């Protein structure tokens, strides 16, 4: 960990200009996000909410899998841990959303730490199997918790109110989730720019012999597992509020895989990639449904659900085989061409 890699601002003399451009892009992005629900129909506001929420879950996963190289299928379990901790805090102690999210994040960090422990001894396929097992064990624990606390149907969340203000409308819900997603994005950006960022990338590079890894690598690993799970668990609370309920049937392995598909499609290890992937994967079913309606639903379009399943699989395969650096790869090469051309 004592490798002397020059900090990015020293290594890249073009940094100031790039920084200005980045800030400009960020301002533009914020403007678009804020303006969106004012411009589009409620239907598209819902789609946008789904995409932004998906980003808030995919981005921490990308930190763990893309940046630190820890392939995990545990994210749906972290969502349910968050949702039920949030529900418990809200219902039992009558707490506001921010407190519920903080407590859920703490629970997520603890569970993430435990699920991350096998990564000190296992790697590759074995580590992945341990996250698969963890998924089912945690979801089962959640089921038991659900039956004892909330009844068979799961936890029903009330309309969202913070400090007496009703935030349950489509637009306000969208703004709350977008603000949270922005916070997640900021946290991850700052981590990756700091010394922690280098430590995280080092975990991926040095994971060749996990059993023999040094103390600092082990510490960083567990830290990333906790941090990523904490963010996902906090997002789980928002997601449950947004959906109006939380029930274990929702937190399937397929849900976990969806977020992995997002980071794959968008670009592993890239925050922008998480955003692009979240939007893309969220849009697929929307587009297929539209096509199905527009073309009267004949032929394969008569079964939009099956068609979505096929297309979703084909997209995953196509990205692995043809565009392993994801959508962000297109953006990067376009940017490079612009820079070289102009």
């Amino acid at each position: 960990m004592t490798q002397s890699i020059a900090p990015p601002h020293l290594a890249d003399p073009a940094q100031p200009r790039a920084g200005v451009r980045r800030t400009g892009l960020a301002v533009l992005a914020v403007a678009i996000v804020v303006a969106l629900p004012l411009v589009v129909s409620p239907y598209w506001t819902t789609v946008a909410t789904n995409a932004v929420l998906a980003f808030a879950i995919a981005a921490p996963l990308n930190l763990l899998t893309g940046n630190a190289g820890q392939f995990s299928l545990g994210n749906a379990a972290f969502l349910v841990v968050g949702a039920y901790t949030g529900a418990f805090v809200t219902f039992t102690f009558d707490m506001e959303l921010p407190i519920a999210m903080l407590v859920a994040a703490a629970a997520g960090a603890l569970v993430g730490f435990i699920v991350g422990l096998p990564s000190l001894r296992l790697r590759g396929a074995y580590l992945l199997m341990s996250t698969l097992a963890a998924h089912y064990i945690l979801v089962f624990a959640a089921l038991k918790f659900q039956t004892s606390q909330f009844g068979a149907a799961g936890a029903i969340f009330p309309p969202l109110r913070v400090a007496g203000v009703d935030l349950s409308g489509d637009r306000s819900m969208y703004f709350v989730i977008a603000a949270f997603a922005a916070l997640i994005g900021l946290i991850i950006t700052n981590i990756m720019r700091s010394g922690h960022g280098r430590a995280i990338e080092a975990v991926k590079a040095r994971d060749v012999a996990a059993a023999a890894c040094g103390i600092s690598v082990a510490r960083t690993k567990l830290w990333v597992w906790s941090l990523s799970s904490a963010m996902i668990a906090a997002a789980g609370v928002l997601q449950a509020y947004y959906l109006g309920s939380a029930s274990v049937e929702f937190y399937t392995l397929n849900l976990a895989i969806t977020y992995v598909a997002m980071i794959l499609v968008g670009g592993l290890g890239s925050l922008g990639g998480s955003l692009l992937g979240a939007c893309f994967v969220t849009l697929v079913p929307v587009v297929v449904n539209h096509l199905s309606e527009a073309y009267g639903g004949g032929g394969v379009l008569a079964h939009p659900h099956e068609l979505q399943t096929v297309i979703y699989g084909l997209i995953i395969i196509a990205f692995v085989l043809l565009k392993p650096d994801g959508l962000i790869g297109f953006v990067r090469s376009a940017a490079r061409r612009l820079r070289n051309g102009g």
Partner: protein
Amino acid sequence: MTDFLNAVWSGSGFGSLYGLVALGLVVIFKSTGILNFSGGALMAVGGVVAAGLGAQGFWVAAGIAVVAVAGVGAVANLTVMRPLLGRGLFPGVMVTIGLASVIEGTSGLLFGRQPRFLPDPIGVPTFDLPFGTSMSSTLAVALGLSAAATVLLAIAFNRTSVGLQLRAAAVRPEVASMFGANPGRIFTYAWAVAGGLAALAGALLASLTVADISIATFALRAFAAMIVGGVDSLGGAFLGGILVGVTEMLAGTYLGDDFRLPSTMVVLMVFLMVRPQGLFGTPEVVRP
């Protein structure tokens, strides 16, 4: 006692189905290093195809399903799996997940999602066993067929050219290439075998319960079977399947039905932490 033995009988029957799928996972993982997440989908589509041919009786229907799904496996290798060789864990897992999704959706489009049934393989519904216990005849057939498949596969790996080349490719891929193994060809056999075994499990499951494409998650226990047995051991996959199946049924009998799947995952986790090479695996086979 009766409950216990009944759980052991049916556990080993169901476990042998996990073992069948796990055998396919082992054959692929061992030779290509790809962790296959499409075993469940291959099994489910095998069950659906067999049940669709139910009028032909169990054996004909199962036979056709085995051949058809072996073909699906072979085509999968030739199209999407072959370019993945040597690319590591994540790409392989994701492509097989994508493959599972394509198989599931296509099956839904072609055959629908209504549950289907398949007649029993043999006329007698149950066998009577000591202490007033009994075992479903289909489960007994499943146990017998999986044991036979394991033995046949072990013989094939030791005696046939492709088997020998697959074994070599599993440990020293470059040496296997040097001495005439054509990876494109031999891995196609591996995938065909995996598809066929999964389809056999699917057909048996269709005759035990029902078949529809969403039974794919049933086969997740095959991962537990594979790890428990040792990822590079064929006999291990079979015995691992039985161990997982018996654990599951005992948990179901004494703790409640909702403990079944979680109990297999606890077994998986325990083995990963205590003995990742499984019961019969070689410790150094741990691939990155």
